[in-house]
């Protein structure tokens, strides 16, 4: 019997009791649909993380001030003000691996433009910040070093801010007010999207750090210019670890820390954070895939159960087939093909449902999903394997029947 004919006769045998066949397939259907959906969601999450990595830059480090101990009470990270603009400059000059450095300060503020207002983050930094973050402008220009030195009243705004304040109008050369300080918009940043924490990175106003210090925050123009963070971009091809070690060494020297003393700053590698996140999302996806795998196994057991019932029900048919010349392997093949057909048809239905579910999750829940051809191949392979594995025992039982016993079966 050739394969096509066997397949057709298997389909016919299953079609004669189609409700039972569909119910039997349910386990496989759910399992395959779950595998496809889970892999698509996991793939989407991974893709999003990869995009974030790209948007953050994989060669960026963040130097943050350390915790402050005030009368024995430790106040947690970033409460100290141990980092200065001079530190930033020293890193840029003394660490050869470093390509660019941008110190920054930030605060939340209400912004007003003509008749719109918006609460956003205002950040003061240097002209190098856009280079450090690989963040080109969508239109206009950035501020230059002269403006940074002269506390110029200029601002570069993120896309979200531009939309909130100006709608579709061109924001370039428009005036905005931050805490009563009028600023001229000179540039609009391109879209950066969400960061790994889900914050909108485009919801920001960037001003020269001197403007921020002197006019936005109104700090006393002290001798020491403290900063909230220093973003460091390491040159392409240079080791992050090495750069980090050198920065640490430099800052310890500058801060005159004793050999045993703790750092009064911390260095964060954004890539590492993302990798940790990626790892956790991968573990999550694997857990879900394991659940889906369990449901495939349960589906397989369902198939085995029904095939055993079918062998019992059709014992006389098996006897007749043997009487007219079927060999054991013909009977084995027949029932094996029925089991595989059952699981493959179930797998096909599962793939359709899985794709539909993936699409629904993508469009209604707004999750990023990534449907891969591999996951479909995997599902097909898995369901065929389930069919062979769980179909083999019932098929062998059928093939091992003695002709006369099968024929005489009541």
């Amino acid at each position, binding site marked *: 019997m050739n394969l096509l004919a066997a397949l057709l006769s298997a389909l016919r045998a299953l079609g004669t009791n189609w409700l039972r066949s569909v119910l039997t397939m349910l386990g496989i259907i759910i399992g395959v649909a779950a595998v496809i959906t889970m892999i698509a969601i996991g793939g989407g999450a991974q893709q999003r993380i990869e995009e974030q990595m790209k948007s953050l830059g994989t060669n960026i480090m963040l130097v943050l001030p350390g915790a402050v101990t005030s009368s024995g009470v430790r106040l947690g990270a970033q409460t100290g003000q141990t980092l200065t603009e001079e530190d930033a400059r020293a890193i840029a000059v003394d660490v050869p691996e470093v390509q660019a450095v941008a110190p920054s300060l930030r605060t939340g503020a209400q912004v007003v433009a003509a008749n719109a207002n918006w609460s956003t983050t205002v950040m003061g930094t240097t002209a190098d910040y856009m280079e450090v973050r690989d963040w080109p402008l969508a239109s206009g220009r950035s501020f230059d070093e002269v403006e940074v030195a002269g506390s110029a009243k200029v601002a570069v705004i993120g896309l979200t801010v531009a939309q909130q304040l100006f709608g579709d109008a061109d924001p370039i050369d428009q005036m905005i007010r931050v805490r009563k300080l009028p600023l001229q918009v000179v540039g609009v940043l391109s879209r950066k999207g969400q960061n790994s924490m889900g914050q909108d990175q485009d919801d920001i106003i960037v001003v020269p750090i001197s403007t921020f210090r002197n006019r936005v925050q109104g700090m006393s123009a002290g001798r020491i210019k403290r900063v909230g963070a220093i973003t460091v971009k390491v040159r392409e091809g240079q080791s992050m670890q090495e750069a980090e070690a050198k920065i640490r060494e430099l800052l310890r020297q500058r801060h005159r820390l004793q050999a045993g003393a703790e750092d009064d700053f911390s260095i964060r590698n954004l890539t590492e954070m993302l990798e940790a996140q990626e790892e956790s999302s991968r573990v999550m996806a694997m857990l879900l895939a394991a659940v889906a795998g369990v449901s495939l196994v349960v589906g397989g057991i369902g198939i085995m159960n029904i095939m055993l019932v079918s062998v019992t029900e059709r014992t006389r048919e098996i*006897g007749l087939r043997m009487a*007219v010349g079927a060999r054991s392997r013909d009977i084995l093949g027949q029932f094996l093909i029925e089991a595989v057909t059952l699981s493959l048809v179930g797998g096909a239905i599962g793939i359709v449902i899985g794709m539909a579910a993936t699409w629904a999750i993508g469009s209604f829940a707004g999750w990023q999903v990534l449907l891969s051809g591999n996951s479909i191949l995997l599902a097909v392979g898995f369901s065929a394997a389930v069919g062979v594995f769980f179909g083999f025992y019932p098929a062998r039982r059928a093939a091992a029947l003695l002709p006369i016993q099968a024929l005489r079966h009541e």
Partner: protein
Amino acid sequence: MALIEARALVKSYRMGDQVVQALNDVSLDIDEGEFVAIMGASGSGKSTLMNIIGCLDRPTAGTLRLAGEEVEGLSGDALAAIRNRRIGFVFQQFNLLPRTSAVDNVELPMVYAGIKPAERRRRALQALERVGLGQRALHTPAELSGGQQQRVAIARALVNSPKLILADEPTGALDTQTSEDIMQLLTELNLQGMTIVMVTHETDIAQWARRRIVFRDGRIVEDRLQPPRTAAAAATA
């Protein structure tokens, strides 16, 4: 050389702590072209003999040769091949595959003989023609009368051109008139050269055969030739 040579066949079953002798030292020769009726009460061993001759069952002791070939010691696959090519079976309950057309049912032995689909279809239709069911080829068993179903079963038995047809109570599930028709068909096949061995417990069905063997308690108690009843005789009866 006889078509069937059975020598000292014994078949015993164990039922609990009791051993039942279904066949007790049965020796028998059946030549090609014979039409044999095997009679006896139920449990007399006639069906057991039939199953052993049909290679569906193996004897406990004794030997069986089919067309000179020793059957004992053959593998399951070899027995399947013998059933497939040399023997056609006709059963009391027809044993057709349900929800499967007559022609597909008739094709079944050829499927296992490895014959190509087009050739299968041609020969199956030919066989149906031969049993007078050429017009019903696409009907399923549920759409056919008992007599028609048995004709389909006979066509299935014929289709691989075996030497021997084994009929186990072929009229057991049919009314008298239909039984006559089926016996008429078997007689025609016998006249065309087919060897037919038929198990029955009905005397008037056994009368169609030319040789009658009677079983009792696993032994042959009577084996004689008889003038076969004919269709003409049936018509006047």
